[in-house]
């Protein structure tokens, strides 16, 4: 990833017609991996995607992908010339075409030089084989959304914009599609901008995060970095988490577990299809981390890391809770515990304690 | 009282003036409805509230009499049409057949529908140019359209009514067709059987064929008193 290989978005005071909403953002989005767009309802996420796609026009903005300018005050590449895929918040299929024809519409116009995903692969992944002959009005909400995702992939975009693509899908489908999206974007190096309300989804997918509020960016940066910081939007979130990257050093087929090594520490995780030597990212939710003063051998909790308490912050909204920033080596880990426990255990900054993490709570 | 008179469209201008004079003279007013003779005929057959019918031909009044829709004694010929060859541009050469054969478009009224059309056909046959000009003929639904064709210069020549040429906004150039070339264009009027105002209707019919009235009609471009 070279520095130039980046999506730059600067939008100055873009006012929507008949509305007092305005968008004013300045983003540098890395051109690989997923950038999550987070923010409350009405904060301008959809509007931002529409600006990037060229569906909203404004002279004041500047947009470029890999140094290719889509929008400056002089030029403005029309929407159909921008190499994007767009999954709309409300599927927005062509009502006069069947599901299959909707996909064909994209295939015919796909960028043949890009390879993103094969037709049969998409059909299998989205589990849409059976509904292909139906018209959009004959599909359920989730089915429509799946066709819309498939359509956006089949156009073979260089940038994928997804507006809550999985909101209408059930957990089991989500769980199948999510890793796939992850794989697609990592392997084909397509940047994805992904709007979601689910921190879970976001943390799982996103390398980079942008938080919007009232049309302004309030937080922006690497997921890993942002999550490890106290006092941010995320550390106040009930799902406050950190992301840890390590290397698989050992595996046990019998128990279906892998040992992940990072910063001189080991974490045991449920085994997926990773192999020894692979790099892996894990999410550790602050609420899944408990502390003890001594190692406890007779507990079902497998992961016990020796950490140093780096910082402690009371939750301003909820005084019964304390957020701790722990350092496992140099890797920050957040732990959310009751104020009573910190009192009982007499926890203080600089103290060395044991962080207990249920391995099953790790996400991939 | 008011007399309701159905008048063939080609007699609009004269009847408007005559109506005023009749009103001044008798104090009775006329209500005029215009239309092609065919249309008026169909309306009369379906009980149209007319007292008198001024047709552009004789056939229709006679047909009404046969149908007992008109009073048989009342039939009069109130005007005889005069056919004229008319153009907006000077007509040359001056002999009729040559002028006709040289023209690009010649407008006549539909011979099947309009007495003037029939007269035009007869005249053209008389001049032995009927076959020769077939490709140039354009037909108006009535003599009014034949006039408009010529007036707009879409037709170089038109066989129209003299009355039109006289009443029209542009006089142009015209050569009257001798009466001998065609059978008379007799315009007949009848009193309709349904009228409640027979006496008044008779008064108007008498007014129509009175010598001074006929002179005025002649002034509009009709030949009168031939019969």
């Amino acid at each position: 990833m070279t520095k130039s290989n980046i999506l730059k978005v600067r939008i100055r005071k873009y006012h929507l017609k008949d509305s007092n909403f305005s968008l004013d953002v300045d983003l540098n989005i890395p051109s690989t991996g997923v950038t999550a767009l987070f923010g409350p309802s009405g904060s301008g996420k959809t509007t931002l995607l529409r600006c990037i796609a060229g569906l909203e026009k404004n002279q004041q903005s500047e947009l470029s992908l890999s140094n290719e300018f889509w929008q400056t005050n002089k030029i403005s590449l029309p929407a159909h010339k921008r190499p994007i895929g767009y999954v709309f918040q409300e599927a927005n299929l062509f009502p006069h075409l069947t599901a299959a024809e909707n996909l064909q519409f994209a295939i015919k116009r796909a960028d043949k030089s890009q390879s993103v995903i094969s037709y049969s692969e998409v059909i299998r992944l989205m589990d849409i084989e059976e509904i292909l002959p139906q018209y959009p009005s004959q599909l359920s909400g989730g089915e429509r959304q799946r066709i819309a995702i498939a359509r956006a992939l089949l156009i073979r975009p260089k940038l994928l914009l997804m507006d809550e693509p999985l909101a209408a899908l059930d957990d089991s489908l989500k769980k199948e599609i999510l890793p796939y999206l992850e794989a697609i974007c990592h392997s084909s190096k397509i940047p994805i901008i992904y709007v979601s309300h689910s921190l879970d989804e976001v943390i799982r997918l996103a390398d980079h995060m942008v938080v919007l509020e009232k049309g302004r960016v309030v937080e922006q940066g690497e997921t890993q970095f942002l999550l490890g910081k106290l006092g941010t939007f995320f550390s106040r979130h009930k799902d406050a988490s950190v992301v840890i990257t390590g290397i698989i050093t050992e595996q046990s087929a019998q128990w279906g577990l892998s040992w992940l090594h990072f910063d001189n520490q080991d974490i045991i995780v449920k085994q997926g299809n990773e192999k020894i030597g692979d790099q892996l990212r894990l999410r550790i939710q602050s609420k899944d981390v408990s502390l003890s003063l001594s190692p406890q051998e007779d507990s079902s909790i497998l992961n016990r890391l020796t950490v140093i308490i780096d910082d402690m912050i009371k939750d301003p909204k909820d005084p019964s809770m304390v957020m701790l920033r722990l350092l496992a080596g140099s890797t920050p880990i957040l732990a959310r515990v009751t104020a009573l426990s910190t009192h009982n255990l007499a926890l203080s900054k600089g103290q060395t304690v044991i962080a207990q993490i249920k391995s099953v709570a790790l996400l991939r | 009282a008011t007399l309701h008179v159905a008048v063939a469209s080609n007699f609009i201008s004269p009847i408007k003036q005559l109506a005023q004079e009749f009103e001044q003279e008798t104090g009775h007013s006329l209500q005029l409805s215009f239309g092609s003779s065919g249309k008026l005929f169909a309306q009369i057959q379906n009980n149209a509230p007319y007292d008198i019918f001024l047709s552009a031909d004789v056939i229709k009044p006679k047909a009404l009499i046969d149908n007992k829709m008109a009073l048989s004694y009342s039939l009069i010929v109130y005007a005889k049409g005069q056919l004229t060859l008319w153009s907006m541009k000077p007509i040359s050469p001056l002999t009729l057949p040559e002028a006709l054969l040289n023209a690009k478009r010649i407008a006549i009224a539909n011979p099947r529908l309009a007495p003037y059309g029939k007269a035009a056909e007869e005249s053209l046959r008389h001049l032995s140019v009927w076959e020769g000009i077939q490709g140039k003929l354009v037909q108006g639904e009535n003599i009014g359209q034949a006039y408009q064709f010529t007036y707009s210069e879409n037709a170089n020549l038109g066989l129209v009514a003299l009355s039109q040429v006289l009443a029209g906004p542009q006089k142009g150039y015209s050569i009257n067709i001798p009466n001998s070339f065609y059978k008379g264009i007799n315009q007949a009027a009848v009193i309709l059987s349904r009228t409640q105002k027979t006496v008044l209707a008779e008064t108007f019919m008498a007014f129509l064929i009175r010598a001074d009235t006929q002179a005025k009609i002649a002034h509009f471009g009709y030949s009168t008193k031939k019969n």
Partner: protein
Amino acid sequence: MQLSPEDLGAIWLTLKLASLVTLLLILMSTPIAWWLARTQSWFRGPINAIVAMPLVLPPTVLGFYLLLFLGPQGAIGKILDDLGLSPLPFSFSGLVVASMVYSLPFVVQPIQNAFIAIGDKPLEAAATLRSSPLNRFIYVALPLAKPGYISATILGFAHTVGEFGVVLMIGGNIPNETKVVSVQIYDHVEALEYGQAHTLSLLMVAFAFTVLAFLYSLQKRRKHQPAAGGLL
């Protein structure tokens, strides 16, 4: 050039006729269009075609047949007579009836298409909000079909104003009763009074233009539709 009292009478009559006919047609077309838009019956095609039939015959001929039907010997004329009603031909009422027959398709079609475009969703939402079929027709279907109604009004009104053949046939060209502007202009042309014909035509065109431009400005892109502006 001055307008004669007859011209003025014709103008007044035309406005009266066109307004009345348009109003009645809108009322009458609404249930027809609604039925046509929503029925699944195979009757739909034929009924639709019947509604369009008056278009196919030349107006004068249509007028001729109306005259036959409404006349004392005609099927409908006899019924009206038996009911003690005065005959329709050569009366203003007759003109209204004839004009309605003639302009019907132009009013039904746009309304029907507008009803079709609404779809079921808003009506279903209304049904779950305790809105009865009539209620949701009035408060949901009608407002959503507004552009169709404006089109229908425009086409119906303009067509009635310009109509002529039917009127001439059924009306009998009686001043102040059935002599509308179109007939009056025609008479002027026939009488070679081109000047008056031009004046009246111009007046009519100017008036109609004003009315229609106003009506069309009502039919602007609905406020609730995202502005087209940018994209296409």
